[in-house]
Every structure is written in C-alpha cells, then in structure tokens.
C-alpha cells in the first residue's frame, strides 16, 4: 500500500536539519502538495525527490554558499588534516593488526622504533594543534617529521602554512568528518588484506581509487571534499615524481605512464571542484 503523499514528503523532509524543518518544513510541504495536486500525481516526481535529497545533503554538509576563496581555505585545512591522518593511518592499522594477530609490530621489523614513533607523535601533536587552529605551530612541528622521510607530513606543513594569515573557521556538518577518510581506507585495506591475502593489492588499489570517485560524486553536494582529496592526491603525485627523480628508473615509458595515471585523480578533482566552486558562487 502506498503511503499518502503528505506522509511520503514528510519522510523526505525529515532529511533536513531540525531548525530548517521548523522554519520551512510546513511551507515546503504545502508547495510540494500543491504542485503534486496540480500535476495529478499521487507519488513524488523523481526529479523532485532527487532535488529534495540533494538539498538536504547540502545543508547537512554545512555548505553555505561561500566564495571560491573561502571554499579553498576550508579545503586546504581539510586537505592538510587528511595528509596528517594519511601518514598516521597506515602505521595505526598495522599496529592494530599486530595487536589482534599477535605478530611483531611494524617498528620491531623496520629498524629503531624512534624512527617511526617520533614522526607519528609529531603528527598527532600537529593534528591536535591544527584542530585548535594553531596552524603556524602545527606547520613547524611537522617539518622534522617531513624531512625524516614522511613526505606527506611535509606537504601538510606547506598547506597549513597557507592558512596562517587567513584562518578559516572549522567547517560545520559532514565536512568535519572528511579528514577521517584516509583512516577508513587504511583500516579497510588492512582488514581486506587479512581476509583475502591473495588479492590484497587489488583491494588496496580499489580503495585508493574509491576515494576520488566518491569525491567526484560528492561534487553534487559539496566541492570542498573534492578539493581536499585533490590536494591529498596531488601531494602523492609530487612525492612520486620526487622518487622518480631520485631513484634509478627501470623504464621511462612505464614510469611516464604510471605518473600520467597518478595525475588523473588530482587533475579531475581539482579542475572540476574549482569549476563547481565558481558556478556555486554565482547568485
């Protein structure tokens, strides 16, 4: 049995934040029902449903029509946090795995523990400072960890330095949790690798590619996530280029192809997000 139209629309309107619903809910319901009555419909039109869901998600995402520059500042902050979380996520996932399966922890297998633990501690301190909007101190704290070979932390330091002069407000809504994405990918990759060791590489690559795809889809809601992910992947690309320049190259053709493929996610994410921010900034 199909629910009456006002009940169906009422359920869709529950997706909106409570304060918006209090202010606008009854008015929107009136408009939706009037339109349905005029069209002779007893069900919501698909276009209307998609628009209602997308608008609700935009509100939940905390997107409030910022200027492109404000979008960029927030995205740089999120991108820097993502880079720090990325640097911490993989060792954390390995530590958890070591504890669960009672195998030697990774630092016991890879030289003196301080080489790993000190940069990780610095990263966690910088993460806390960045969350407290102390961007300059956070950027300085990350420099030694960066030069110890944690290049993602050096990239995070550079991004945090951009925020020193004009500090963005911490984002509201779903964007607050975007920086946790690398943690999720690391833990899912580690768990997947344990469950299916034969295809752990494929699982890891799939998860790595799932992030930019999610960022591109989320462009319909909030372009700042795509910008932040673009910065994360751009840092990865630059680190890759640096390694190519330092290391002996086995095959230039293969290296060039690998770098071209690695350049695709940041190019798409940054290009499309910039265009979306420009379009959204129009009245």
């Amino acid at each position, binding site marked *: 049995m199909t629910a009456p139209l006002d009940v169906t629309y009422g359920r869709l309107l529950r997706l909106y934040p409570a304060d918006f619903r209090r202010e*606008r809910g*009854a*008015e*929107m*319901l*009136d*408009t*939706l*029902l*009037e*339109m349905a009555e*005029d069209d002779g419909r007893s069900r919501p039109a698909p*276009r*209307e449903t*998609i*628009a*209602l869901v*997308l*608008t*609700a998600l*935009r509100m939940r995402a905390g997107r409030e*029509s910022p200027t492109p520059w404000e979008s960029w500042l927030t995205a740089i902050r999120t991108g820097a946090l993502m880079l720090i979380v990325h640097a911490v996520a993989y060792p954390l996932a390995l530590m958890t795995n070591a504890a669960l399966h009672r195998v030697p922890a990774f630092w016991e297998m890879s030289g003196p523990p301080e080489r790993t633990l000190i940069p990780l501690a610095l990263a966690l301190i910088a993460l806390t400072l960045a969350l407290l909007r102390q961007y300059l101190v956070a950027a300085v704290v990350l420099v030694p960890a960066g030069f110890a070979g944690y290049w993602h932390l050096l990239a995070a330091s550079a991004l945090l330095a951009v925020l020193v002069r004009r500090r963005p407000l911490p984002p509201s809504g779903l964007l607050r949790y975007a920086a946790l994405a690398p943690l999720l990918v690391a833990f899912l990759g580690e768990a997947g690798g344990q469950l299916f060791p034969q295809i752990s590489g494929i699982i890891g690559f799939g998860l790595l590619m799932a992030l930019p795809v999610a960022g591109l889809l989320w462009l319909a809601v909030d372009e700042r996530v795509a910008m932040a992910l673009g910065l994360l992947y751009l840092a990865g690309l630059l680190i890759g280029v640096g390694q190519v320049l330092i290391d002996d190259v086995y095959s230039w053709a293969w290296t060039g192809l690998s770098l071209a493929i690695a350049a695709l996610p940041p190019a798409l994410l940054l290009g499309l997000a910039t265009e979306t921010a420009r*379009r959204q*900034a*129009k*009245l």
Partner: protein
Amino acid sequence: MTNPMREPTYFILAALQQEPLHGYAIIKRAAELSQGRVKPATGTLYTALDRLTGEGYVRVVREETVNGRVRRYYALTPDGLAALRFEAARLAEAASVVIPHAAMGWA
C-alpha cells in the same frame, strides 16, 4: 551587483516583478517566463529564496495558513529589483552583439 546571475535566480526574481507570490506560484511563473526552461524544484527554490533573502533581494511580505500549513508570500525589495534590472541590461548588451548580425542573415 556586478556578478552575473544563474538563470534560475534570474527567473525567480523576474517572477516576483509584478506581485508577491508564494512558493508554488513562483515556480509556475518562472516556468512561464522562461518558456518552460526553468522550473525550480522545491528544494532548490527554497535554498534560492533563503539566499536571496539573505542578500536583501527578496523579503516575506505576508503569511497565511491554508489547510493547516503556512504559506509565505515573497516580494522583490528595491535592491532585488535593481539587481534584476542590472542583469537584464547585461543580457541585453550581450544579445546586442549578435542580434543585428542575425537580422542581416550573416552566417
């Protein structure tokens, strides 16, 4: 007002030129004025109205209750009318670059 407007915003403001309208009436009027090209979905309309209210281009002029539900009527403010006319002039200027050539049948 110097930034170009998006088409839906232009037609939402244009819909309010003659008289205050409520949500669904704005959607219908915008669709008529744009010859069906712009028919804002309800979610989009209310986001736009919130933004236009914040910019001072639109304001609520009266409320009534129909079937137990609130119906708000929106009107253009003087700033909204000025912004709409500015955008219309910008579009007319852009059109003037093309229309004389088209009238002469040039390719």
